[in-house]
């Protein structure tokens, strides 16, 4: 199964600084390098909040978790955050087994995420 990657910036006014990465298909040993390649320019930029929309992600292996873990660490270093939304149960189970991503935020829906990101945006602005 291939991996489709869609990167979107500033989906709504509340989270103007956030970048959303929508993944469709399988994030595995063959497809993880491509995600890493596409995230590199995003992470090199000023983004503080990265949201991974996993609604259409059917499969994940440790190769995929490593890409998320690297992104999380880079964001954390600049006071940022990796968030995950719409995780399917079997994908969430993999995250829970490995516990590789401490402190990441997992949300069920966009409304919950928007509230969280809006609060974080205010916090970033207050800290500047």
């Amino acid at each position, binding site marked *: 199964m291939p991996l489709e990657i869609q990167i979107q910036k500033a989906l709504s006014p509340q989270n103007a600084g956030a970048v959303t990465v929508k993944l469709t298909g399988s994030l*595995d*040993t063959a497809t993880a390098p491509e995600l890493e390649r596409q995230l590199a320019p995003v992470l090199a930029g000023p983004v503080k909040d990265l949201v991974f929309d996993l609604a259409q992600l059917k*499969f994940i*292996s*440790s190769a995929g978790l490593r890409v998320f873990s690297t992104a999380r660490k880079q964001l954390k270093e600049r006071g940022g955050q990796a968030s995950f939304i719409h995780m399917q149960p079997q994908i969430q189970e*993999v995250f829970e*087994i*490995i516990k590789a991503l401490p402190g990441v935020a997992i949300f069920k829906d966009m409304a919950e995420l928007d509230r969280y990101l809006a609060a974080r945006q205010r916090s970033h602005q207050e800290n500047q």
Partner: protein
Amino acid sequence: MTLDLSATPEEVMRAVEALQQFGQAKQVPEKVLFGLALALEECGSNIVNHALQRDPHRKFRVAFEHTGDAVTIELRDPGPEFDPAAAPAVAAAADHDDRSPGGWGIQLVRRYMDDICYRREAGQNVLRLTKHLTPTKAQK
């Protein structure tokens, strides 16, 4: 079913897809099949990345079997002797070394498989993974 694969990530996923089709044809429950596919992906990736150094000219073999109350996956590779089942469990919440051979991978395999059996045979690593399908044994 037996597959001879070149040591590349794409070939690992070819084996995973073949296992998924095999499992669907045998009506293996989706949740169980997810775990089987993941275990194969992790073990196959370790063979490609570590045992066979991503050399596309080198080969490894994967076989799967459905016996009615269990699915077994057997992986054979000609790499240096290495027993992934003997690898220590990685401490949770530690900062993981991404180069350690299958730290997270073996953790996932242990979680989804009921039995992991390694042997060295005629210069090959042979890894046999078993998942029981009957409710009394598959309590994970």
